[in-house]
Every structure is written in C-alpha cells, then in structure tokens.
C-alpha cells in the first residue's frame, strides 16, 4: 500500500506543478464569467444557461485533464527511464499501475473540486440560493465516471505506441460515449438484424458515462436528485468498470519485457 500511495503522490505533485490545470481553469473561469456578465432582456433563466455552459466546459476540461495526465504517465516513465530504478525496487507492476491510477484519479478529483466550487459560487451569485447536496452528488458521479476514463487511458498507454495517439483515441471514445450512447438502444431497435444485435452489444459493453453527464439535469433544471438506490449502483458500476480496465492493463503489462 505504501508503494501505491508513494507513486500516487508523485502524480499529484506533477499535476500541481504543471501548468495544464491552471490554464484550463482560467479559460473556464473567464468564459463563464464573461457569459455570466451578459444580461439579455432581464431573462431570469440566464443562470440556467450559464450553468449549462459552465458544466459543459467542466466536462471537457475534466476529460482533457484525466486523459492528458494519465496518457503520459507510463510513456514518461519509459522515456525518462525512471521506470527502471522504480521497478528495481520492491514494487510490482500491479502496484505501479494502481499508483498511477489512484494518482491520476485523485488529481482529477482535486481539479473537479476547484471547478465545482467555482461553479457553485457563480451560480449562487446569480440565483441567490445554493443546494450544496446537488453539487456534491453531481461531482461524485462525475469523479466516478472519470475513474473509467483514467482506466481507459492507462490501458491505452500499454496498448498504443505513442501518448498522442492514446490521448486522441481516448478523447474521441469518451466524447462518442457521452454523445451517442444514450441513442444506441433506439438505433438498435430501429436497425434490427445482425447490425441491431451488434449495436446492442456495443450499447451494453460501453461504460455509461452519460449517467454522470446527466447529473446536469438536477443542477440546471432542479430536477429531483437521485436516491441511494440509483446512485449506489451507478457508483458500483463505474468502480467495477474501472477495475476491469485496470485488470486488463495489468494482464498486458505484467509480462512485457522492459529493455533498458
């Protein structure tokens, strides 16, 4: 456990000392604040539009942070050759992967906390009310969904040859899941036949990132928040999916020769 935690701390320090997060946060903050300062025809629902825009930006930024941070981890270790003194210590490859996973996931959690805090402050300043619980649940779901994205990028860094290809593929896949998955079962029903079966198969094996994305509904439109019976299984699903991706990454990585 010590080794996993030690590796995770190094990942966290890297994120804190790099500029990526700060740049993305400043861009999000600037866009949100500029949009928030516009008041069109005294429209009372402007706060809703503002939150929708800010949440979309937060989702894009969180995907960029999760994928960019994770995708470069193993490549950087190999390129700078730090993987050799690290694995020459009593650290197993499973511990290395787990350390990288938790480091990246915690880094995403830290970034999300800052983003959601900013969103809550901006929204509260316009709506003059703050429902802390809905922000906490939305962030929790978002963070859990990012565990799947981090797992995917970590697996990609073992499968793909370059961090750029891994990052691009992961980003396209994540956006495609968010955008298209909710429509896949309708498409499957309409298509029918073998193509319909394949579409259904894709629908069932892809991670349901859209569940977390839909948390916007109760933040923007003040829909009723999901109860524990909905939230619990969703969180368990993300945990199970991330574990499966990590297990696959470990199976591929454990016997791979590392030549110095």
């Amino acid at each position, binding site marked *: 456990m*010590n*080794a996993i*935690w*030690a*590796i995770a*701390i*190094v990942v966290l*320090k*890297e994120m804190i*000392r*790099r500029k990526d997060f700060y740049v993305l946060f400043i861009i999000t903050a600037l866009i949100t604040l500029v949009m928030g300062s516009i008041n069109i025809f005294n429209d009372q629902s402007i706060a809703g539009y503002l939150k929708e825009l800010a949440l979309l930006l937060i989702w894009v930024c969180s995907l960029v942070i999760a994928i960019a941070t994770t995708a470069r981890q193993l490549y950087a270790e190999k390129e*700078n*050759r*730090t993987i*050799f*003194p*690290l*694995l*020459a*210590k*009593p*650290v*197993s490859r499973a511990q290395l992967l787990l350390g990288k996973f938790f480091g990246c996931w915690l880094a995403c959690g830290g970034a999300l906390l800052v983003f959601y805090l900013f969103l809550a402050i901006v929204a509260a300043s316009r709506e003059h009310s703050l429902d802390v619980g809905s922000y906490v649940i939305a962030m929790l779901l978002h963070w859990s969904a990012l565990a799947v994205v981090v797992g995917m990028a970590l697996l990609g860094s073992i499968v793909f040859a370059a961090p750029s290809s891994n990052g691009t593929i992961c980003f396209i896949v994540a956006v495609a899941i968010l955008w298209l998955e909710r429509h896949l079962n309708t498409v499957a029903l309409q298509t029918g036949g073998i193509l319909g079966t394949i579409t259904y198969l894709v629908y069932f094996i892809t991670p349901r990132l859209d569940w977390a994305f839909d948390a916007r509904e109760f933040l923007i439109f003040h829909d009723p928040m999901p109860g524990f019976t909905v939230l619990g299984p969703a969180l368990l699903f993300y945990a199970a999916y991330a574990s499966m991706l990590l297990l696959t990454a470990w199976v591929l990585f454990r*016997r791979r*020769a*590392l*030549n*110095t």
Partner: protein
Amino acid sequence: MCAVIRIVEPILKTENLRVEFRSKEVGGGVKVALNGLNLAVYPGETFGFLGPNGAGKTTTMNVLLGFVNATSGDAFLFGQNVREPIARQRIGYLPELTYYYKFLTAEELLRFYARIFNIPKSEREQRIDAVLKLVELDHARKRQIKTYSKGMQQRVGLAQALINNPDLLILDEPTSGLDPIGRMKVREIIQRLKNEGKTVFFSSHELGEVETICDRVAILHQGELKREGQVSDIVREYNCDLEQAFLRIIGHTPQSAAAAEANPQPQAA
C-alpha cells in the same frame, strides 16, 4: 599451491542463464542475447561486468532486476529468485542516463523512494541527509532536479540507489557521459562504498577505472562468459593492463574490428 574455497553464499548468482529475443520482423528469427551464463558475486566484492556493446551486460542486469524474463536458467539475489519483487528489497540500482522526475527536488525524490522501501519516517529523514551528504548534493537538496547538471543528476541517481542502505549495488555504466570531474566524484563514491563493505556489481567501458576499483571481473562477449577472475590474476596472466587483456580475451584485432563494422550484428537489448 592451495585453492581458495569459498564457504560464503553468493549474493548474486545466475545459473545457465539464457535469454533469447524474437525478432519483430516476419521470419526474423531468434537472437541469443545470453547463452548459459553462470556468475557468482560474493559479499563485500566489487565486481566489474565487462564486455563490448551488445555483449549481453545490460540484458543480464535486466534479468537480475526483473525487467526481462530469462528464456531458461535462473537468477538469484540473496538466494531469492529474481522473479519475486522481495528479491530487490536489499539492492540499489543505478541505471545508465536516467532523467529523474524533473518537477521534484532531490529531497522529495529520495522521500518518494524511501516510502517505497517502507523506511520509518524518523529514519527516513536521517537517511536522506546521509545520502545527500555522501553524494555532495546537500546544498542543492531543495532545488528541482530540472535545474541539475548531468553530473548532479547522476549523483542524485546514486543517492536513490543508496536510500535503503543496500547490501548490493548494481550500477550500469555509472560514469557514462560524465565529464572528468563528474567521473572522479562518482568513482570516489564507489570507492567509499567499497570501503564500507558494500557489494558493488557494475558494468563499465572505462577499463582503467575498473582496474582501479574492482576485485574481480567477468568478461562477456556475444552473450557468453569469456573470462571470470581476479583483476590482478588477469593482468598478471596477460602481462599487460586490463584494457589490453580485455581486447585479447574478446579476440579483438584490427582486422576483426573492420569485419565487425562491415557486418554489424543487430542489438538485442
């Protein structure tokens, strides 16, 4: 005439170690990087591991450190099979030309490695102080590694290799790419570790340095062990310095060098 009988167990041992690499090209065949290597390094020795480029030195180290699995044969550290991570608890390893996490300071880097070894917090700080003093980086401990010169980076590498107070140090070309002052400093540190009774296993192309520091050497060529013995015995036997003896052992002649350059062998590792 009396033979010296060793009764101590070797710290590092390989038994008929064979490593093959399959070419990634279609029909590329198999390249034998190591062929039946038997080595034994005993406590307190400074052991030089020599050979031309592509001889199999780094492959041997990669097997010892668990980076590459042997095709056949076994390797042991402190009697433990190198496939078990626990075998690496009492070793320190310095790879060739590593660029440590540049966003960390030397102190943070050493704290990270110390945590991996589960060194208690109180002891951890003392250990960091001691190794930073030993490698003469105490003054730069709070600076990020990205500001370090090459020599300083190599010394921080030595510091990380020493953080667990290892009984065995494995150094892969520790002075490679350093200027004369950097080399001298690293050599002095190795000498100091030798005087402290540490076992040092290192590869180097600097044969003058090996002759000065090492007790025994093994000479590898094309994946096979050509010679193993006391430096003094080899020098006496060939009646020349270690460099000349090395060239004669691997069968180097100006003609063979020209032939090798005309038909280069693919490097396995």
